[in-house]
């Protein structure tokens, strides 16, 4: 199993992780890290997540 934002998710295409959160590759204001390194948007479609990997999907949010 791998994880997305701390929750279990089966390994596979990175975009399936994004879709599990209700977002697509076109959603503005998102960024993704795979095992602590940023995956540039241009590489989202070609990236595959392996067993044990940790994905973080973040967005712009309110802040001070």
């Amino acid at each position, binding site marked *: 199993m791998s994880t997305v*934002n701390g929750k279990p998710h089966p390994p596979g295409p990175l975009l399936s992780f994004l879709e599990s*959160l209700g977002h697509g590759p076109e959603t503005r*204001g998102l*960024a993704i890290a795979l095992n602590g390194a940023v995956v540039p948007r241009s590489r989202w479609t070609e990236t595959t997540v392996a067993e044990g990997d940790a994905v973080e999907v973040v967005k*712009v949010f*309110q*802040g*001070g």
Partner: protein
Amino acid sequence: MTQDLLTIAGKSFSSRLFLGSAGYPNQQVFLDSLAASGAEVLTVSVRRADLTGYGEGLLDLVAGKVWLLPNTAGCATVKDAVLTAQLAREAMGTDWVKLELIGDRETLYPDVEQLLKAADTLVRDGFTVLPYCTDDPVVCQRLADVGCAAVMPLGAPIGTGLGILNPYNIELICSRSPVPVVLDAGIGTASDAALAMELGCDAVLLNTAVSRSTDPVRMAAAMRTGVEGGRLARLAGRIPKRTRAEASSPELGLIGG
């Protein structure tokens, strides 16, 4: 009067008030407050995409209206702060970052040692770094030395509204800093913002004082005028303080003399 612009890393702003986007009662009050504040720089955070709130779609709401300044709020390690800044750059397409490295959860005081390391790392990675820091002239100098585009010393701990607890330090920092000084955190009301500007700060960053006030839109307008008044007073040059009275009316020609 010539236009009095604030310039940071080659980017100029006519407003010297930076506003935070958190903690407003709802989205409309936030947008109205932003408009009333006249702020051209808006701080935002990056959070896990499953978190919900009025920050939803924030980017679309303010796109093109303000310059976004993503923060690394809540980060306690260099690693987390650097990754957060890199994610913000990817998400927003800006290399500006308000660098926050919290050393203590209770006081939210900056961890200066880690802050310097993270600032150095991010500057080398091409970021325009605006660090939230302690009101210490030496720390501010070190941050400028590693290439920060501005320094943002605290007036008082985040969210306290205690105003500027050490005006002497803030004035000292302003008088020596080679980069713009943005007073960040601790502002409670408009007179605090005015004082920051009178002490020589180049701008003021605040959030809670507006978002949690009884009437945020009105307080946003108050902060705008506070900052403008303080800036004008600074430029005008205040009179020196005296320990004895000095009559302002002429002392000649008094009746009954």
